[in-house]
């Protein structure tokens, strides 16, 4: 995990940010958090469509799970109401637990799939849940030393 993380840092060190693509929200089902699965044209040459769609669909599933209205959420809500909502100060809500799962998933996706292709996904929570920001990096190529370029190639070979 630590070495992979360092490779991600070195990707940024040896690559320059070319552009950012924003995946907007899909409001067709109301105000629930769901992102569009339309494949942006800028990523055409960088990543396979299926991988991208899988990532977005999994994220949508996570958000749907967080916002699911069912027995457990009602229980949590009623318990909170009965304690005059003081329980929100002590306990972590289900939404927050799912958000932690989401950030772990995004980090894992970045390390395994996106960083080797020179891409980086930003967690939507850092953009107010409005967009999924994907940063596209261009490899500088000549600026890094031989060891840094070999590390980039080793990460892309994963």
């Amino acid at each position, binding site marked *: 995990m630590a070495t992979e993380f360092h490779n991600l840092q070195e990707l940024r*060190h040896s690559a320059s940010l070319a*552009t*950012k693509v924003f995946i907007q929200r899909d409001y067709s089902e109301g*105000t629930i958090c769901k992102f569009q699965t339309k494949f942006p044209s800028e990523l055409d040459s960088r990543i396979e469509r299926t991988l991208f769609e899988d990532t977005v669909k999994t994220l949508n599933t996570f958000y749907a799970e967080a916002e699911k209205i069912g027995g457990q959420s009602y229980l949590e*809500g009623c318990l909170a109401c009965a304690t005059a909502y003081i329980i929100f100060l002590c306990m972590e809500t289900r939404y927050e637990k799912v958000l932690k799962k989401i950030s772990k998933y995004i980090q894992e996706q970045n390390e395994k799939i996106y960083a080797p292709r020179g891409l980086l996904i*930003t967690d939507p929570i850092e953009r107010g849940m409005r967009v999924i920001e994907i940063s596209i990096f261009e490899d500088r190529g000549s600026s890094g030393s031989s060891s840094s370029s070999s590390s980039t190639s080793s990460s892309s070979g994963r």
Partner: protein
Amino acid sequence: MKNCEYQQIDPRALSTPTPTPPPPPCAKRKTQRPRRKWEVFPGRNRFYCDGRIIVARQSGVLPLTLGLILVTSGLFFIFDCPFLVVHLTSCIPVIGGVLFVFVVVSLLQTSFTDPGILPRATPDEAADIEKQIDNSGSSTYRPPPRTKEIVINEQVVKLKYCFTCKIFRPPRTSHCSLCDNCVERFDHHCPWVGNCVGKRNYRFFYTFIVSLSFLTAFIFGCVITHLTLRAQDEKGLVYALQESPARYPFHLAACVPSLTWHMNVCSVKHNPQTELVVCFFSIWSILGLSGFHTYLVASNLTTNEDIKGSWSGKRGAEDSVNPYSYNNIFTNCCVVLCGPMPPSLIDRRGFVPEDGDPQATPQELDLPPFVAKNDTNMEENCQDFALSCTA
């Protein structure tokens, strides 16, 4: 070796240190003190306890609301409870105490919770949206008001572009001019609680007004009972009202919802008919508000939508149906009041990245020391990108 090479980048050499108040007395700091995001928040809000508590800029009436509730309840507990415990039951102060706790706690939570503020768009995001609008729109000098139409549950909904926050507002979001923020599921800006009421604190607000209705009705009932019992024991109702300090809760139970009525009552001395009438109307105003919000909850509407008549079919030829309603009163109530609690999107206590732009860099979630080192490169790259965008 990789580590050494990477760690040799010294952000201190590249970023210009700005003086921040107050500088630490002993250590010679080359970097500026890391600031939290609430310190650079662009909206008109005030923050306390290092970003844990958020209120609107004008929170002037909140102390009054709190004061009125505390004083009324205090007088009730001091004057009426001892008498009623003796003559009726000892449950009276218990019920009163529980209601009082609910009222105060829910009031404070309504006032100090982030109502669902949407953070403003990053420069990159705003540029991307502008590009999309320019591609589709005409190139006239004054562009038409920017709206986007979407379909939610077979209902056409218009999303408006917010010029302050530089985003297309999600459905049910509105920009509060007092707080200068876009708030999700915006209900209204309540001066009595000193904050907007939106997605995250609507349930607290509802609990507050419902428990306040019960509390005022309870106090009103107890005071009437107290005076009646005294009138029976002693020389009659008028004497009881004149002599008993129990008349003060009458004055103040009337004041709890309404400042103007408070002014009137203060000028009225020993006139029980006026007091009762004023008290009656005051309690009805709170009960009316509770009833109105119960209707809103049951039909999954916001005050904003109800006032504008968005879904009542007043405007347009076709029938507008609320697309967010589940068409079941019970489900609507459960969803609005007991639904999952969404997180705060503005991350008040997070640290601003060292490059000074709080939203330009994607942050890694573990190992915060790496964030500072990344930003040096990201700043250069972001500047390059920004220049290439505007070229």
